[in-house]
């Protein structure tokens, strides 16, 4: 009846975080690329703007005349090119197809240059990449229209530097965005999964007997889960009810005839005259007790194991419970002239344990002590508090634990080598040990000084 831990096929939260991070990374990358593109375009546009203005500036200063074309390059036209960065400047002025000044090998565009609206192109020149602005205009020379072409070019070092800086900024921006998005996605994942984890906590806090349907306000996505959960709970409750009924019925149907047999055997014993009959009747009664006891302890053990998984730990005054139980045992003990001594602390001893588990352990201990004590002996039950632990000791003057290690006594169906004449199943100490384990306690059994056995059960407070 142990709870199998559910196997995880991954964490929703991790998956959510990973997916959000992937989205964030994509967005960051996109942001980086778009900022970079926009920046590069802006830088290009800026360079083209200045280049174009300077080109037009030069073109506008061209004059026609009777002698030919008069060319005046405005100082500012070149000077302004130095405004953005320290790029190299090249130019070429053509009248018709003849280069009149500037760099004669500066490549022409592969389209025809017309008009004062500058057009731009990029060419390699002298081992560098050039951005060239080109305009053309007509001037009147000696009464005839002559076309003059102005090419003004600049290397792109400054532009590339600025682009690089922009790219770095864009990368930083993207990175920053990603970091912020990553942090936000953690929070998002947590808040999205909060209803789920609070539901899990609420279910985890339930006691073992709490099989009420789950009635919580949950996000709509969880409603099917709640429905399924409630269906499962109701089936479980029905199954448990059936099981409980079955056990009860079974116990009833086994124990009632046993009780009948025992009662009739006792009657027969009372009426029997000869020793042989009496002996066999006693054996019969003992066998009945034996099987009833075994059945009982098996059931108890099953219950203990079952409850170990679903303990209803609640603060319990174990001193009061112990007193109550010892009192309940007193008639049985008295029957054999065994004195049950109980020593309790003055104060209540509060311990968070499952009451049924605790009682079942204590009952088995006292039962053993009483059972294995000879008539007229005493059994000492004491509860003390020391070193933040509650120590419960049940000591008898019985026959002791005999040969073999104490630990083997707590194995299932293992009985001491010296107790074959006493009714027992060998499950009692196993139950005690299991209860101790389940409750975080410790169980020890050792020979008592001066004869007998000393069983001690301790729990952390």
């Amino acid at each position: 009846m142990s709870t199998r831990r559910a196997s995880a096929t991954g964490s929703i939260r991790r998956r959510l975080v990973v997916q959000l991070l992937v989205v964030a990374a994509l967005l960051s990358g996109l942001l980086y690329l778009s900022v970079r593109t926009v920046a590069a375009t802006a830088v290009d546009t800026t360079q083209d703007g200045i280049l174009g203005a300077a080109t037009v500036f030069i073109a506008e200063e061209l004059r026609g005349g009777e002698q030919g074309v008069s060319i005046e390059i405005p100082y500012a036209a070149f000077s302004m090119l130095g405004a953005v960065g320290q790029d190299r400047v090249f130019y070429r002025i053509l009248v018709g197809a003849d280069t009149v000044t500037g760099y004669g090998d500066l490549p022409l565009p592969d389209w025809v240059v017309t008009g004062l609206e500058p057009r731009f192109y990029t060419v390699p020149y002298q081992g560098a990449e050039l951005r060239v602005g080109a305009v053309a205009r007509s001037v009147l020379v000696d009464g005839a229209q002559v076309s003059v072409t102005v090419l003004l070019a600049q290397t792109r070092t400054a532009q590339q530097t600025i682009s690089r800086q922009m790219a770095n900024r864009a990368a930083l921006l993207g990175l920053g965005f990603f970091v912020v998005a990553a942090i936000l996605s953690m929070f998002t994942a947590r808040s999205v999964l909060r209803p789920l984890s609070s539901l899990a906590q609420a279910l985890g806090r339930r006691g073992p007997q709490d099989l009420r349907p789950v009635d919580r306000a949950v996000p709509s996505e969880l409603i099917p889960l709640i429905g399924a959960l409630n269906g499962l709970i109701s089936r479980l409750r029905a199954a448990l009810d059936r099981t409980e009924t079955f056990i009860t019925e079974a116990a009833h149907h086994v124990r009632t005839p046993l009780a009948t047999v025992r009662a009739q055997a006792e009657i027969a014993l009372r009426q029997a005259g000869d020793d042989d009959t009496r002996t066999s009747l006693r054996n019969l009664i003992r066998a009945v007790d034996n099987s009833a006891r075994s059945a009982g302890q098996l059931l108890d053990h099953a219950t203990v194991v079952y409850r170990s998984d679903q303990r209803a730990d609640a603060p319990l005054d174990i001193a009061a419970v112990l007193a109550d139980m010892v009192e309940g045992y007193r008639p049985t003990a008295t029957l054999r002239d065994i004195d049950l001594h109980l020593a309790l602390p003055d104060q209540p001893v509060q311990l968070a344990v499952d009451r049924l588990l605790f009682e079942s352990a204590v009952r088995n201990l006292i039962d053993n002590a009483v059972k294995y004590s000879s008539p007229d002996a005493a059994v000492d039950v004491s509860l003390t508090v020391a070193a933040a632990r509650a120590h419960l000791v049940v000591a008898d003057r019985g026959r002791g634990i005999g040969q073999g290690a104490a630990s083997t006594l707590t194995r299932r169906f293992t009985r001491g080598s010296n107790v074959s004449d006493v009714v027992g199943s060998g499950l009692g100490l196993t139950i005690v040990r299991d209860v101790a384990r389940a409750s975080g306690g410790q169980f020890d059994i050792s020979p008592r000084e001066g004869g007998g056995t000393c069983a001690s059960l301790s729990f952390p407070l």
Partner: protein
Amino acid sequence: MRFTILSALAALWLSAPAAAFEIEEETIFGDGPVLISVLSTTDTGVFAPLIAAYQAQNPDVSVRYVVANSQEVYRAIHDEAAAFDLVISSAMDLQMKLANDGFGRAHDSDAVAALPRWARWRDQLFAVTQEPVVMVASRAGFDGLGLPQTRAELVQVLRDHPERFAGRVGTYDPVRSGAGYLFATQDARQSDTSWRLAEVMGRLDPQLYTASSDMITAIQNGELALAYNVVGPYAQARLAGDPDAVVILPEDFTHVLLRTALIPTSGEAPDLGRQFLDFLLSEAGQQLLSEAAGLPRISAADLADGPALRPIRLDPGLLVFVDPIMRRRFLDEWTAAVVQP
């Protein structure tokens, strides 16, 4: 064809002239096994202390120091790919042109990284000194007149006393001197006053020179009452004890020439060039330049002290007046203004 002249000019400029560049002076310092060749516009005497200090640190290096005028320096590298490991020139526009057109090697070191942004262009052109461009006036020449502190005042005083200054003002000849061309074009770019000044001077039959030192000599021997656009540190060094000559930093604006260094691609020992450059920019080198050579070190603080001081910017604008058409145009206009028939 109508464009023949222009096209011919362009062709002339674009094609490499065959003639070798003209050397003024060539000196070899030391007899170390390793040789570094330095091409410079700066007189050997001025640079000797630096070379000595450099060789003290690097005893196995012998230094070949070649002096030429700035246009020849430019031609040597641009047209002839002469094997020099370091080129130091006061012609910022030509140095800029060399760097822009890919004749410089990249250099990166702690020394160049420490330079102010305005004192370098890319990783190729580095300023080693900053030299204000000044006017030098003779007190005797201006006797009874206030010394002009701005170009406008100068225009005024020259215009008001043509008889007194006729033949007694001097300036660089931009046609023959690279530095003179740079100063003149920067003047023209900077203000209209400079054109007025050119016209006024033109009426006074100005004397034209190719070197600052000649103008200073002319002031000292009384030939000139005023020399315009003289390289300041030379004047200050030469006129330190002269009670008559006055160095004037124009208050409207004073150009600051940056003497720049470039490691040409044509050099055979570029690493030595880098080493020498780093030495020039080092604390020891800069101090020597200031104190022994009389060439002010690169200092943003010094510039901040003179509000009118404006370093000529190392930017592509400098390329404009290197353009042959632009040069031709400018010189035509300047000649028309100054050299009046």
